[in-house]
């Protein structure tokens, strides 16, 4: 099972470095959130807006593909997360509403109620409860 820290490849570190240094207007532009976990699976997040809104319920589209580009489909996606630095979790309980196309999961009910650094952990399990893929998105929510 890939570790959380292990999932943060060099590409992600460059992205995070960029996020921290870039100016506030696109500090958390999600079009950059495309990352690999230690198994080589490719994870991507798409939103209806450039970045998550503050204090509003919204949806994420999380896609997961194997290193060969095969969609990780028909699996159970569970979401957790929070602000590690503050020691609290997500304020809501996001749920998958649909797999909109193979390997792309619509997750409703995200909300972020504070500015700052958030972690969102996505985990895909098969029908036996075995973890197929797991990845942590980390981003800075800033005005």
């Amino acid at each position, binding site marked *: 099972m890939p570790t959380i820290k292990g999932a943060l490849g060099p590409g992600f570190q460059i992205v995070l470095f960029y996020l921290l240094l870039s100016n506030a207007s696109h500090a958390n532009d999600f079009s950059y959130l495309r990352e690999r976990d230690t198994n080589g699976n490719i994870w991507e997040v798409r939103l209806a807006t450039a970045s998550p809104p503050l*204090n509003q319920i919204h949806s994420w589209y999380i896609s997961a593909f194997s290193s060969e580009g095969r969609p990780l489909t028909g699996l159970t996606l569970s979401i957790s997360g929070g602000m590690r630095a*503050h020691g*609290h979790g997500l304020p809501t309980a*996001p749920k998958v509403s649909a797999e909109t196309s193979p390997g792309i999961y619509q997750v409703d*009910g995200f909300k972020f109620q504070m500015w700052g650094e958030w972690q969102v952990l996505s985990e895909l399990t098969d029908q036996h409860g075995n973890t197929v893929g797991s990845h942590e998105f980390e981003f800075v929510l800033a*005005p």
Partner: protein
Amino acid sequence: MSSSLSLRLKLAALLLVALATLVLLVLGLQPPINQARLQWSPQERAMLNSLRLPKRLQPRDPSNRFLDSPAAAQLGHQLFFDKRLSGAKDMACATCHIPERYFSDGRPLPIVANNTSLSELPTRHTPTVVGAALHRWQFWDGRADSLWAQALGPLENPLEHNSDRLAIVRYVLNEYRLSYLQVFPNSEVTLPKLERLPEHGSPLSPIAEYQTNWQQLSSEQRSEINHVFANIGKALAAYQAKLLPDDSRFDRFVDGLNLPTDNRPQSYLDQHEQAGLKLFISEQAGCIQCHNGPLFSNSDFQATLSSADITPEREGRIAGIALAHADPFNCRGIYSDAPNSCGELDFAKVDGIELQAAFKVPGLRNVAKTAPYMHDGGFASLSEVLHYYNQAPTHGFSHNELQPLRLLPYQLKQLESFLVALNSELITDAYWLTPLLPLRKEITHEHS
């Protein structure tokens, strides 16, 4: 000689003490002498802009399609100030939400209905209703997911209006029949047949007879009554949606900062207030974590543990969210106008230690006008609140979201002066701030 030496020693000691005191005073109570104009980084400016009040405030609630209805606001206006809506005809919404006190009551805990049969006392401080329509959750523990659902609570609360559902519906349909039918025109066919119903009845009443009366009604009758009752809440919400804050000096300061050639922002907030604002958005003070956005509230729930007199497992958001889910007047219920768009309710956390003893984060606009403070009204002044957050005692609770801020006394004063700079008038026309007098007696069907 020895007495003279002793005197000199005593004097020297006194001088030392005085000097030390002076140094402490200068360090602790006075800001460092720095008259230079405060600079604001791009990140800080972005944060300030995120706190600025929008040019047009528009409360939204899909579950209440009458929120923007002028006729509903008119009806709600009358109901808000009408004492005859209460069981003893002596208490209106405005009894505790006093317009001259920024729609709060200035008391730690609210006054109790004269005719209450309960011996217990209220435990929650009266919050202002200004801007309440912009919040997603209502009551300190978020037991209502809309302002119209909230408005129904006090009407039947034995400590507040202390009336009952049948009496309230009967009163409104008699006294305000024309207004009611004007706001809710399609409802006449389903209006309850009052003449066939008992005087009193409610599923929530502490009076057994009233509960029995309610249980003996048919489900159709109950639904008809509930429908009118929900509409009363929707009219009250439409009125309260008009009670909104106007720009404060802080907002004008932000506007000035956005104009690179404008030197005026300095005149809107003085150096002391600006230093307080800088602290407010700083990591060290951390106020901005919860008091964010244009209302200076994230509408979420936090365990501030301001009182040791609480049972964390049973109070706060942990209780409120369970009540919200069980409330027949919630967004999902049959009286809601948008039962399929209830994201806040659908995705709210229902368990976890974070919800224990957690209470709603209040907005801070005009906070200086709404003392005392906290969910239990436990602090008399802003300086007490700031002092408390600075110390952050845990009261022995395992779950503690506060950390000592380690701010110096002068910094607490700067924060306080900034909070006072959030004072403003209401955007609301004065017409809405007083009762309509004399109350026009409507011609009702029963009298005609």
